[in-house]
């Protein structure tokens, strides 16, 4: 069920991001979502891409990359939609490491990505409460 995210580690230096993105851009891989967390020294680039395994191969061994499972929840296109999701997590005392949102033109929807410790339990909770979850297949289309 969970969505697989590609994370890469880059130095917080001029040109490092474009260098990393360049290696996957020379193919037909589509970057559906992107978020960066950074410190003074480094950045962690998190991406949801159309073909993750291919993207990781293209990055090669010289770029530190990792695949993480995250939860992608579809949001209603109206006010308070994000809060409803966050509130649900909070009530269940699920700790959120980071989050970001993206929209998909094909699915005509907005998604919020949740990075949690227990993906399975979080998905079970959210679908139980009637939220619609995205799958890898939907996103890579």
């Amino acid at each position: 069920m969970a969505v697989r995210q590609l994370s890469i580690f880059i130095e917080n230096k001029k040109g490092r991001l474009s260098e990393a993105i360049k290696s996957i851009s020379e193919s037909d891989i589509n970057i559906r979502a992107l978020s960066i967390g950074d410190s003074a020294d480094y950045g962690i680039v998190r991406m949801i891409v159309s073909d993750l395994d291919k993207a990781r191969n293209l990055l090669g061994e010289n770029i530190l990359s990792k695949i993480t499972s995250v939860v992608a929840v579809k949001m209603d296109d109206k006010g308070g939609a994000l809060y409803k999701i966050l509130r649900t997590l909070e009530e269940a005392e699920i700790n959120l490491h980071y989050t970001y949102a993206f929209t998909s033109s094909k699915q005509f929807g907005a998604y919020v990505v949740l990075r949690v410790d227990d993906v399975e339990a979080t998905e079970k909770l959210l679908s139980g409460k009637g939220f619609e979850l995205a799958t890898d297949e939907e996103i890579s289309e």
Partner: protein
Amino acid sequence: MQRYYQPDIETASREEIVKIQNEKIVKQVRHVYDNVEYYRNLMDKKGVKPEDIKGIEDIHKLPFLKKDDLRECYPYGLLATDLKNCVRIQSTSGTTGKRVVAFYTQHDVDLWEECCARAIVAAGGSDEDVVQVAYGYGLFTGGAGLHGGAHKVGAMTLPMSSGNTERQIQFMMDLQSTILCCTPSYAAFIAESLKDRGYKPEDNKLKAGIFGAEPWTEEMRQAIEEGLGIKAYDIYGLTETSGPGVAFECSEQKGMHINEDHFYAEIIDPDTGEVLPEGEKGELVFTALDKEAFPLLRYRTRDICILTRGKCSCGRTHVKMCKPMGRSDDMLIIRGVNVFPSQIETVLLNEGYTPNYMIYVDRKNNTDTLDIDVELSVDQFSDNIADLQEREKKLAAAMRTMLGIGPKIHLVPPKTIQRSEGKAVRVVDNRKLHD
């Protein structure tokens, strides 16, 4: 004003000093040979007997001691007397792999403190002074040495230890300290802190400072002298020989007089071990002439230095050493703490990192900084920043435990630190420590 703490010996003629050294070395070699099995074996291996040492000119026949020997002998292997005769232990900065533990009898403590007293008097100190000791107290020899020296002089001693600058300044002002003893970088920091609080150099009562335990330049001396409105004097020593006070600067502020009635100095070629003539640059070697508990003979300091015996305007006759001009090993002195790159490597390996790292040392606002680039491996990479920050914190804490000072850790992607085919360059020292 008193000019010398022990005038007879400090201004003794060359002949008198040599006579003292001759007597002491013969006795000392016998003492060490009889009581220290490790050194006896070294002498036997070299085919030297105590009776071969008839005077100080025979000292070159003796084997050297190196830091590795001290490590091998930890803790009691070089002890030359019964433990019950010892009254004190001091140690080099908390560094597991390279720790040196030095033992002192009361006689050893006294001679060490007398050496420090000579330094204090040379800096213009007397029983009318208030000596603020802002070196670290504890196992580190800085605090204990100058504290004892100030007592011997009869000065009022402020045992501040290092740090807590707010309190240093309060005591300095309220109790009117006249002599400050600390590392030069801390002195510079105190000067800056005073300025930040709106004090002018003439607002304090300080007249002199005795600064050592780390390398410093003439520029730094000038900055400290102007910032505090004092005369700044250098002092030299190491735990292996006793602590600070082995050598000290006089009013000339040009080189440090070695207390050669207690410590005999030689300059050798670090590669061949050959003794070099006066005035030539080489590695400084010390022999403790009359210490009882931990008497190192021909100890290689790894400090590169020059000895000179010209006439000094202060009237002291003892040989002078210049400020150390570098090291013949890879040891770094950072905030007064001895750091070996190998220790940093040990911590990295213990904590599961690769031995690929770069050490950057710099001096910012007169304080040494230590930054270490460390490569992150695939298994260690987390997409969660908090995890990586936790990693940096944990590694910095492990470094602090090993080194005694905390570095700033920088995680870098794998294979970004340059690989070298020959001798790897692991250290970039951007400080300008030597003129």
